[in-house]
């Protein structure tokens, strides 16, 4: 157990599509489980990273204050931090709100939108505050590797992780590099 490689994962401003694609490695996950143990992740429901994580996989960009805290926790506790998918690399689909002022976004969603009842902008103190723009994660922390794709295919995860676990510098051949 102690010799296993510790992997943490999270989805920030993402859609969990990258996590779903990761799970598309199908039965290879059994092979992975022989050498890897999952730490903080939606797969385990562990809430915080152990201090000795080896690999942190970050899906999604940074859209609110909680994303920033989570991302910093991952950076602090993971030896290798990986940006997974288009949103973590360039903000992706959520970043398309960057061209609309935040107030207009909130008004459209919670005040003027079709079918809105009891119109009010959520202001519970437990809710993380939105950033004025969605940003890619490399603008907040140092990122060691990038896996492009929307989502990256299961083979991208497999190639990257098996390279790393084998102690090789990870590399993606042409067929595995896609931005869509």
């Amino acid at each position: 157990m102690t010799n296993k490689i510790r992997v943490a994962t999270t989805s920030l401003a993402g859609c969990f599509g990258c996590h779903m694609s990761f799970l598309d490695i199908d039965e290879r996950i059994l092979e992975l489980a022989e050498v890897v143990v999952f730490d903080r992740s939606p797969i385990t429901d562990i809430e915080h990273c152990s201090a000795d994580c080896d690999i942190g996989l970050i899906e999604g960009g940074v859209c609110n204050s909680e994303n920033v805290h989570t991302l910093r926790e991952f950076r602090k506790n993971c030896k290798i931090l990986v940006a997974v998918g288009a949103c973590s690399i360039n903000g992706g689909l959520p970043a398309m709100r960057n061209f609309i002022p935040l107030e207009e976004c909130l008004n459209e969603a919670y005040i003027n939108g079709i079918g809105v009842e009891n119109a009010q902008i959520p202001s519970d103190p437990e809710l993380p505050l939105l950033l004025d723009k969605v940003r890619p994660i490399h603008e907040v922390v140092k990122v060691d590797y990038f896996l492009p794709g929307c989502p990256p295919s299961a083979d991208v995860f497999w190639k990257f992780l098996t390279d790393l676990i084998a102690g090789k510098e990870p590399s993606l051949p042409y067929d595995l590099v896609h931005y869509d």
Partner: protein
Amino acid sequence: MTKTLTIDGVTIPFEDGQTIIQAATAAGIYIPHLCHNPEFTPHGSCKLCTVKVNGRNCSACTFPAMDGQEVINNAKDLNADRQKITQMLFVEGNHFCPSCEKTGNCQLQAVAYHLNMLDDHFPLFYPHRELDASHEEILIDHNRCIFCTLCVRASHEQDGKDVFAISGRGINKHLIVNSETGLLKDTDISASDKAAHICPTGAILIKHTAYQVPIGKRIYDHQQIDQVTLNSESEHDK
């Protein structure tokens, strides 16, 4: 006697008046580029085709081929520079491939794939740019314009119309159209014009044609841009 130059140590012939990129293409050697198209006057603006000629950096699309030149093309440092240039093109505009109908057929994306570009490296600008959907058959999405001027040249040189121009300088540079309203619908462009089909990115698109080719069958899904380009451009040069 045939005049020759070398590219990465390989001796290739050329004819007087050819640029380095023309000689290279004729010899089956790919030099990455975006603003160059053999059908139009070279512009030399994207700088992706930067090669070392006798030790100095030059744009291969504008620099004349000369006898005895030693050209370095496929070198680690040049490809690293090309990757940085491509990353700058990505962060200066808004290139969201998953929501762009040009994805899979886009030369900007294909060059980035070719250079194994996995991230944007620089902070993203997220500039505010407009759409011009006024024309019935042609869409301009300024978010994706890389100012290669291919539409400008195609409209002027082949269509004889001057529909497009680049206005402003530096970060304020932008594509404009030749009409009082500034809208495409009030120009004399038509969907059969060369200028409507020449865009290397998804900035100028023909409407009602999106997503007709499934993923896996698009131009660059399995074929790299070097092969695609050499096939099409050497055909043109013949």
